[in-house]
């Protein structure tokens, strides 16, 4: 019965037309997913390529560098020479100390920026007050002005810090973490306006009813903020933290200005490598291997952090909210 019905169906022109459509649709889909696969893989390759080059070079010996046939994988993966490469740099870069300092600085700055951006973002998202739009335009302004414009004045302000004459004697804050702390808690750190913008959007996206319920039940503004709003925005705050952390960790210009490049921090110890290895003692090729090893050691902590946090990062994008 059913088979007969099928045969009958098959013969009608309508079914034939549909089948044809289905098939062409199917092949179209297949073709597109093929093209898409190639595109995605190509782009991924371009992104990962510099990382791979560094990684493979850090595992080579000097001989491999001369060898024209060796491009990616060294002739012999010699465990000892790899360890030797890394060990040499471990000492040269003062790695444990520099890494520790860099992590402490980046964590401090990122935490402070996250807190200040949440507070300010919440203020913009939920309250109506005179001049709110004007203040928000000012937030965007702080982003649009090249940081170089305020670098020299900031340098002088922190060198002779007296809070616009409000303190009797000026203090030299350079060489301490105070410039970072002060600019971070006031939402003026590197690209802090961007974080304020993100947090404002996130808080605007949260439902108002929960907050109103808390207020009606007698919770104060601050309590509502910490108990109701913060948990709702946690994943976005984590993303802000990640951004702030990464930018501080990678930053060279401001960090050098505030601390000078003699501070034991990773970017400066990486910079010192160029001076530490002179061409008389080592061949150019070997210096190149060491430089690449140094860069891997600089990037590695960030890659680890990203590996742990990418889930939150991508999820918070999927749940929208980050920008809206």
């Amino acid at each position, binding site marked *: 019965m059913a088979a007969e019905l099928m045969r009958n169906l098959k013969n009608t022109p309508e079914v034939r037309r549909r089948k044809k459509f289905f098939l062409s649709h199917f092949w179209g889909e297949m073709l597109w997913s093929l093209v898409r696969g190639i595109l995605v893989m190509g782009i991924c390759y371009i992104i990962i390529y510099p990382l791979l080059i560094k990684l493979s070079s850090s595992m080579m010996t000097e001989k491999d560098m001369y060898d024209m046939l060796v491009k990616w994988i060294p002739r012999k993966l010699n465990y000892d020479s790899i360890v030797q490469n890394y060990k040499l740099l471990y000492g040269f870069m003062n790695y444990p100390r520099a890494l520790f300092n860099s992590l402490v600085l980046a964590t401090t700055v990122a935490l402070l920026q996250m807190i200040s951006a949440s507070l*300010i973002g*919440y203020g913009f998202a939920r309250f109506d*007050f005179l001049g709110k739009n004007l203040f928000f335009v000012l937030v965007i302004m702080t982003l649009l002005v090249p940081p170089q414009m305020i670098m020299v004045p900031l340098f*002088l302000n922190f060198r002779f810090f007296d809070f616009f004459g409000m303190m009797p004697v000026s203090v030299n804050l350079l060489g301490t973490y105070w410039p970072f702390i002060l600019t971070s808690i*006031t939402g003026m750190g590197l690209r802090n306006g961007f974080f304020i913008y993100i947090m404002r959007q996130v808080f605007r996206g949260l439902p108002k009813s929960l907050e109103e319920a808390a207020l009606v039940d007698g919770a104060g503004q601050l309590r509502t903020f910490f108990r109701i709003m913060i948990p709702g925005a946690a994943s976005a705050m984590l993303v802000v933290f990640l951004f702030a952390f*990464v930018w501080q960790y990678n930053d060279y210009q401001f960090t050098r200005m505030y601390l000078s490049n003699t501070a034991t921090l990773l970017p400066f110890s990486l910079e010192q490598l160029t001076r530490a290895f002179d061409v008389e003692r080592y061949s150019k090729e070997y210096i*190149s291997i060491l430089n690449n090893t140094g860069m891997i050691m600089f990037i590695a902590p960030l890659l680890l952090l990203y590996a742990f946090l*990418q889930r939150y990062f991508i999820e918070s994008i999927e749940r929208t909210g980050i*920008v809206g």
Partner: protein
Amino acid sequence: MRIKFLPRFTLRRKRAIWGYVFISPFIIGFIAFFLGPIVQSIIFAFNELSIKAAGFDLKYVGWENFRYALRVDPDFLRVFTETTVQILVDLPAVILFSFFAANLLNQKFRGRWMARVIFFLPVILTAGIVYRFESGDILTDVLGYVPDETEVFSVSQSMMGLLMVLRMPASFTQYILTAVERVPDIINASAIPIVVFLSALQGIPSSLYECAAIEGATGWETFWKITFPLVSPLFLTNIIYIIVDSFTRPGNTLVDLINDAAWGRGIYGVSVAMTWMYFGVIAVILVLVFLLLARRVVYMEE
């Protein structure tokens, strides 16, 4: 928390005060670490600044700093035009690429998660110091170990041939060529614009697409009538972001020059004057972009 010392305020005013309380860190920071420095930088641009142990000295020189930057400095004018052109080249390329990539990553396919993880990787790999090492590394310069330059070159050669055959206008050909050579840079600069577009794409209610499908709209029509208009406000956001990003992006030679003038050569006034000119150009570009786009953007009511 009740504000006891101000008992007669209405709820509205109380809320307004709380608003100021929440944004007060920004107001303090803006005045102390932004407005103050900006005013100072205007003053510095017209003065010769020398730093002493107990403070700094200013000597009024009028437009001399600007004149020095434009006339005397051997590199500024060249680097200045190059950087401006580079922004104009990058802006459309990054916008188009990131919009395309966001649409790609929004589709369902196997390994999408992995692809997203890798596409966002450039966000964390933006260290200027690493970039400086790369460009100074002998792998890239002496041995020609990295073969890409030649490969890209040959690609652009054959592409130029194709575009010539197609009789495209020369300026268009030139633009494509410049863009092709900068593909890795463009991809790296696109990471956050992709994030922004992607989250906007995810935010489009699926009911709209269902509706369109029922009405018989093709994928092409759906894209131009639904996806594109609803994502359009984010074009402005992204253009702003790309420009902001270019200030700190490694490889921005103008910023290197400005930094060198201040921290290397110690001519602070000239450095500030250069930055003001840079900012002027950026402001003009932004205003033009706004005039061009502001009317075409579609806002969905909240």
